[in-house]
């Protein structure tokens, strides 16, 4: 039985097409069931069907049915070890738009757990999950932020460590500020205040985060109560000047200015205990961390290759397993037959002793051939050995 993957991803399909074939977990599981023994991985960047021994054209037809058009020239198809290697790279985040992104591992797990996979898919997906975990544990590929908002949150954590309960003041109710605030909130920070020119819009956002809405003019008065300030208004003038920032007495205050033109006075950066990052600083940090991710990707590829080799060994061993099983079954059959012939002449005690001795002889005799065949399976000789065993012991009928 061969593993096959048929699918499309951000490498070959534009967002319009990807949108049309993106399925939620239930729909993906239904598609997988329609394909037989299969797993369907569908995210915003890829939709792929992993099939054990299925018909490639049927799988293609299923995906084209979802897309509502021919996918010729867009779909890729991989078989056997190449398909496994592809899955391992996907699970490790190496095939992602942002190398090393961590979300994909959870998506692979969810897709796998949504169906009852057969032995081949069970093995290859479990191994893919292991690869994904290894890559994250043994390389630093997933440690660095890949977006401006996550970089801002990571920088804040670099000052305060644990962000649980840290009060944040958000200036402006824009999308970027909301994203950065959401990122901090996901790390446990508390969005205490939202200051906005239009109080109603500020209140709306504040309600979402469980904070309070304040007027822009009240920002200086609340700076003493917060540890982090995120600003992203559309104002053409400075929203906060260095002179408005009160002395902190050793308590750090972190400013993130993601507005263009900038909201915050650059002189704030020189105040004792104050840290100020604007959009250029954040983008430079992201560019640097992405470079780091690419460097780590080389190490991750090595880990993936190791696992692919392990998968190849396992799959090769499958070729000799039926021959080994047949050999053992034939030997056991002969042993039982001879025992049955001798049984009338033996006492119960003698029969038990003979049963034990012949079992041990059989196990010892078959141990080395079994080990050697499994070893040969790792190389290309597995099938030759299996055929030889079948021929020598007359096991051809057991195929």
């Amino acid at each position, binding site marked *: 039985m061969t593993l096959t993957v048929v699918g499309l991803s951000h490498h070959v399909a534009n967002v319009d097409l990807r949108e049309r074939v993106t399925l939620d977990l239930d729909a993906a599981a239904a598609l997988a069931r329609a394909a037989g023994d299969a797993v369907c991985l569908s995210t915003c960047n890829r939709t792929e069907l992993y099939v054990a021994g299925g018909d490639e054209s049927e799988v293609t037809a299923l995906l084209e049915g979802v897309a509502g058009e021919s996918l010729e020239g867009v779909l890729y198809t991989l078989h056997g070890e190449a398909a496994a290697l592809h899955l391992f790279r996907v699970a490790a985040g190496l095939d992602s738009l942002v190398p090393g992104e961590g979300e994909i591992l959870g998506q692979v797990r969810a897709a796998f757990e949504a169906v009852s996979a057969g032995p081949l898919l069970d093995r290859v997906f479990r191994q893919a999950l292991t690869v994904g975990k290894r890559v994250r544990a043994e390389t630093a590929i997933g440690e660095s932020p890949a977006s401006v908002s996550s970089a801002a949150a990571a920088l804040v954590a670099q000052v305060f460590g644990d962000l649980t309960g840290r009060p944040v003041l958000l200036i402006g109710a824009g999308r970027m500020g909301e994203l950065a605030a959401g990122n901090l909130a996901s790390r446990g920070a508390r969005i205490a205040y939202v200051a906005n020119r239009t109080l109603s819009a500020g209140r709306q956002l504040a309600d979402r985060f469980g904070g309070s809405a304040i007027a822009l003019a009240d920002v200086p008065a609340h700076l003493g109560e917060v540890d982090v300030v995120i600003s992203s208004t559309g104002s053409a003038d400075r929203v906060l000047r260095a002179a408005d920032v009160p002395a902190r007495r050793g308590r750090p205050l972190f400013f993130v200015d993601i507005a263009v033109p900038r909201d915050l006075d650059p002189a704030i950066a020189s105040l*004792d205990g104050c840290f100020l990052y604007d959009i250029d600083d954040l983008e430079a940090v992201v560019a*640097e961390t992405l470079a780091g991710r690419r460097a780590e990707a080389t*190490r991750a590829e090595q880990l993936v290759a190791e696992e692919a080799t392990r998968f190849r060994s396992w799959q090769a061993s499958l070729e000799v397993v039926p021959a080994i099983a047949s050999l053992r079954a034939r030997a056991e059959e002969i042993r039982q037959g001879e025992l049955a012939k001798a049984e009338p002449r033996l006492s119960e005690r003698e029969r038990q002793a003979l049963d034990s001795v012949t079992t041990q002889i059989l196990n010892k005799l078959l141990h080395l051939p079994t080990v050697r065949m499994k070893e040969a399976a790792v190389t290309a000789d597995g099938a030759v050995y299996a055929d030889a065993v079948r021929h020598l012991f007359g096991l051809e009928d057991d195929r």
Partner: protein
Amino acid sequence: MVEALFWPALLGYGEAAIAYASLRTARAGTWGVRLGWLAQSALLAVQADRADGFPWASWSGSLNLFVWFVVGFYLIWGCRPRFRLLGLAVMPVAFVLLVAARLGGGTGLAHAAGKAPPYGNLFLVLHVGFVLAAFAGFTVAAGLAGLYLWEERRLKQRSADILRLRLPPLDSLERLARRTIAVSLPLLTLGLAAGIVRMRRDGDGLDALEVLTLGAWALYGSFVLARPTGRRAAYLALGGFALVALARLALAGSHFA
């Protein structure tokens, strides 16, 4: 026997000092610290077993014990990946000081099996043991303070690689330095108290090392009481360490004589 234990300890510390320089080899550095420290622990145990009295009363012997305390303090949390740069600061120092201890004969049995020192074992254990343990704590706290200042400067300057070469958060560095000093100060107080009791009994006066050590004690005492934060705390920790280093390295000869 001591030779067979000294060299693994030195090699372990040396390997760690080099391995901590790269993220890829940092894990091997951690093992170098662990194995080196175990070897040095065994070395100290053999020295203690073979000696008639307290085996680290000499300057070089006390240096050996001091290195063991420093690495021991570092081992409490220093093997976490983010603290590898602290290891890069601590382990080369440990390596060099262990070599110095060796050159002075402090890692062998010669001092240990030599003539008994003029002080009782209990006094030496209390005085030398506590003072050295405290000094080791202050050394590690200074390493943490140095890392704090470096990290704070990088954040202030908005270095693009700030998240690539990632140190522990400023908050953690400050908290750990404060805790280390808070634990070390009582040890120094006990060690000094033992020394002062002995000095008064013998009618001796204060030497330069004792004056410096009392200065360090006063400085760290004010640190614990005033609870400074941020850069000020880091500078104070480094200032205290300057006194400790001077006492430990420059003036120690006369005191041990």
